[in-house]
């Protein structure tokens, strides 16, 4: 089982505050990995221009870095900023890390005439191209994300140590959203791609607990012939892909995510104002029903964040905070560490029917229940 911490705030903050929250939950992970996702970025030495894609990954060898450069140049990306981490190598277990890549590019000129969907498709295909190139060369190149305003760091080791090793406590990078996961290695080998959060076209999730319905879900997603539905080094990667599928492919509202993963039962649907639509949705998305226990924390390109539980709710998570600043963690002590000066009586642990949505304005939580009317009038 893993430990999760997420903070979202109107003002940028250092990711190190979230790593300190991870420290308070350290009984729950074993140092097999840390994953970080930062969104709403601010660099101390660079003024980031909204919309520029950011590449996150690792070039494990100089050759891999050369190939990365060649691929990006070939596509027409223009390097605008290359963030050099002040890495303390001695604090990192792995030896084959030639360069941690965090680079801001200007989008290729040739894409100017592309539609939004086409640009998003090209960004994803470029990331996958880098990943496959690495796989073809002995996994010497790892690409986590290529997307505007998103940075990802994944490394094997203890969260706080990795944060120190990367110098994340020096305030050179700040963000409005920070996801962190301390990994408990379970069935699947230690692989950087198996580390949460998972990312696809601006959609990101991280999860604790095991997903026992993983294989049928993976088989179904893999059969969709969508190039981004690949990888699956972790059983939790499907949560990100389901969120992507529901919001970007089916173009349903965020609330549908919960209805797809943990549909209501027949009796509940019979009493639901849109039971007919939702029953049909349950049937057609039946292979995406998850079987936790899981707490899923996600975020969307517009900086909306969400928290949902599986139907069994054996992995509770807590959300707490105040206007402008909210934290979600798999343990209450994690929330305490991130936002100590909140009103704790207003902390909320969602039940199986709830979706907690923190909208981009971060003023208040939306707690949406599956029993409520579904916000897609036409569909009903």
């Amino acid at each position, binding site marked *: *089982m893993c430990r999760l911490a997420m903070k979202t705030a109107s003002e940028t903050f250092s990711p190190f505050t979230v790593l300190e929250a991870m420290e308070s939950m350290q009984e729950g992970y074993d140092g097999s990995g840390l994953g970080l996702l930062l969104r709403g970025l601010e660099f101390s030495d660079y003024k980031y221009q909204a919309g520029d894609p950011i590449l996150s990954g690792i070039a494990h060898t100089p050759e891999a870095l050369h190939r990365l450069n060649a691929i990006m140049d070939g596509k027409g990306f223009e390097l605008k900023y290359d963030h050099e981490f002040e890495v303390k190598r001695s604090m990192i277990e792995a030896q084959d890390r030639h360069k941690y890549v965090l680079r801001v590019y200007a989008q290729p000129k040739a894409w100017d005439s592309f539609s939004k969907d086409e640009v998003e498709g090209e960004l994803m295909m470029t990331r996958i191209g880098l990943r496959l190139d690495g796989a073809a060369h002995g996994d010497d190149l790892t690409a986590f994300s290529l997307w505007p305003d998103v940075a990802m760091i994944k490394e094997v080791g203890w969260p706080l140590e990795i944060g120190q090793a990367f110098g994340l406590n020096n305030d050179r990078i700040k963000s409005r959203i920070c996801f962190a996961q301390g990994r*408990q290695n*379970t*069935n699947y080998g230690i692989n950087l791609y198996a580390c949460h959060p998972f990312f696809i076209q601006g959609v990101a999730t991280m999860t604790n*607990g*095991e997903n*026992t*319905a*993983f*294989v*049928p879900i993976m*088989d*179904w997603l*893999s*059969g*969709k*012939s969508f190039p981004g539905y690949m990888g699956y080094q972790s059983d939790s990667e499907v949560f990100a892909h389901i969120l992507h*599928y529901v919001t970007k*492919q*089916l*173009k*349903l509202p965020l609330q549908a995510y919960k209805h797809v993963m*943990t549909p209501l*039962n*027949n009796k509940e649907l019979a009493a639901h104002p849109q039971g007919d*639509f939702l029953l*049909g*949705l349950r*049937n*057609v*998305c*039946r*292979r995406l*029903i*998850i*079987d*936790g*226990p899981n707490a899923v924390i996600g975020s969307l390109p517009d900086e909306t964040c969400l928290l949902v539980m*599986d*139907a*069994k709710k*054996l992995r509770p998570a807590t959300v707490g905070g105040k206007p402008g600043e909210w934290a979600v963690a798999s343990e209450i002590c994690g929330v305490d560490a991130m936002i100590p000066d909140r009103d704790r009586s207003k902390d909320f642990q969602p039940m199986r029917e709830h979706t907690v949505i923190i909208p981009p304005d971060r003023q208040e939580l939306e707690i949406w229940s599956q029993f409520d009317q579904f916000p897609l009038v*036409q*569909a009903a």
Partner: protein
Amino acid sequence: MVSIRSIPSRPGSLSPNDLPWIIQHREDRCTLCGKCAAVCPVNTLKLTYMRKRMPKIVLNSSERGSSFKTFVGIRQNTDVGRRCIGCGSCAMVCPNEAIGPVFNENDRYRFQATAGGDATKRGGRRNEPGGSLLDRIIFNRISMLTDPALDAGRHEFAYNTLLGRVLPPEEYVRRKLSGEWIPPVREIFPFIIGSMSFGALSPNMWLGLLQGVAYCNEVLGIPVVMATGEGGCPPWVLRSPFLKYIILQVASGYFGWDEIIRAIPEMQCDPAAIEIKYGQGAKPGDGGLLMWFKVSKLIARLRGVPEGVDLPSPPVHQTLYSIEESVMKMIQSMSMAWNFKVPVYPKISGSTSAKSVLNNLVRNPYASALMIDGIDGGTGAAYDISLNATGHPIASNVRDCYLDLCKQGKQNEIPIFAAGGVGKNGNVVQNALALIMLGASGVHMGKFIMQSAAGCLGSEKNRCNVCNVGICPKGITSQNPKIYRRLDPDDVAHRLVETFQAIQVEVKKVMAPLGRSQSLPIGMSDALGIADKDAADRLNIRYVC
């Protein structure tokens, strides 16, 4: 030495020791009540007078000699047609445990069973005793310390399945928004009572099953459905609210469909589904067969035929030119008959060509499912060679089809149902869940239900298996009222309900340790293991030892 001609031996002569089942009779216990001879369905028992010698020895005298005594004993008929079938009815009625059949490994009967020039026919099952491949598949992805197993007794479990064409989600949302037709889908219990016709089964058996099915649905909330087989069903059932629990089968003889079509305007509800039978696992390439023994007045009326004639259905649907056309036309016609509100799907024999049929169905927007019946399926009547050696085992057939659908991303759209040997050795839930985790959406079971709900005596050692000639000792497959009145429909219903309750418990006891409770684990092949490397490789599951 006696002369050769005086020994009563011809090529076809058999002694009791040559028969597959030998009657053991204990004269010291027998009270000569005659019940065994009266109940024997094949009249193999003969009460005869026999003579035995009693040696006479007087100790204080040199007198020697014998006295002879006459007694009434039992002899076993050695005619091929009246051999003991091992049903054990004699043992069941004997008040003193004085009689019963014993299996004989060394029978010579099989070489002589072709008297009259016809090959051996029987009902029942494939004669292949022992564990099946499905019995060897185990569930070994257990949720342990990383995530605790669930409590089968306390958690809520969702394990129903869907029968019907399921749209791709994108298409569903589009059609729902534009108000277009959504194909009918039934949510059912994944253990379906397989096709056994009103004709193959006695009225008491068939109605007992229906009674049990109705109880499961209406009282227990287990959405069990049963398939009719070819031959329709009683007119009152067609006009009853119970029709929604019934899958009506249309097969190549179209028996019973006059009644069904006539009843459509008066139906209170739609049937659960329509099954178009193109093949049957027990006798691939053969049509259905109801032998004349069983074509009673009632059956003749339902099927629209004269009494007492053999009713062989053709091997194919004669009116159709090709399978593609057949699938398209029949599925569409049947859908139209019920206003596109009833799922229609074909049933085929397990075959290496199953994938071709499946791919045909994928492109047919009205096809609701594919039912594949493997070689271990049962039948009311078939040739030995068909039962034993013709067909395809179900496990790899289902797996191949499922993986083929996965490649196309269509595994949720066309559910595959599997049959043929599910519960052959009593392990019905183990067998069914293995098939489900290999990719089936549910299973059909016939023989198991007959054994569990009605006490069918058949076995893979060719025990009984006389369903074809209407002399079923239990009254399950007979149309003779003197025989089928032995079977009380209430008892059948009671046992059926107990059977499904027990199945439910076992399903939970498998799903809980796998950490699954939210949906039926269709295609969860990572949970399966088998201690047979070749089988594991073939099925793409884990080899364990």
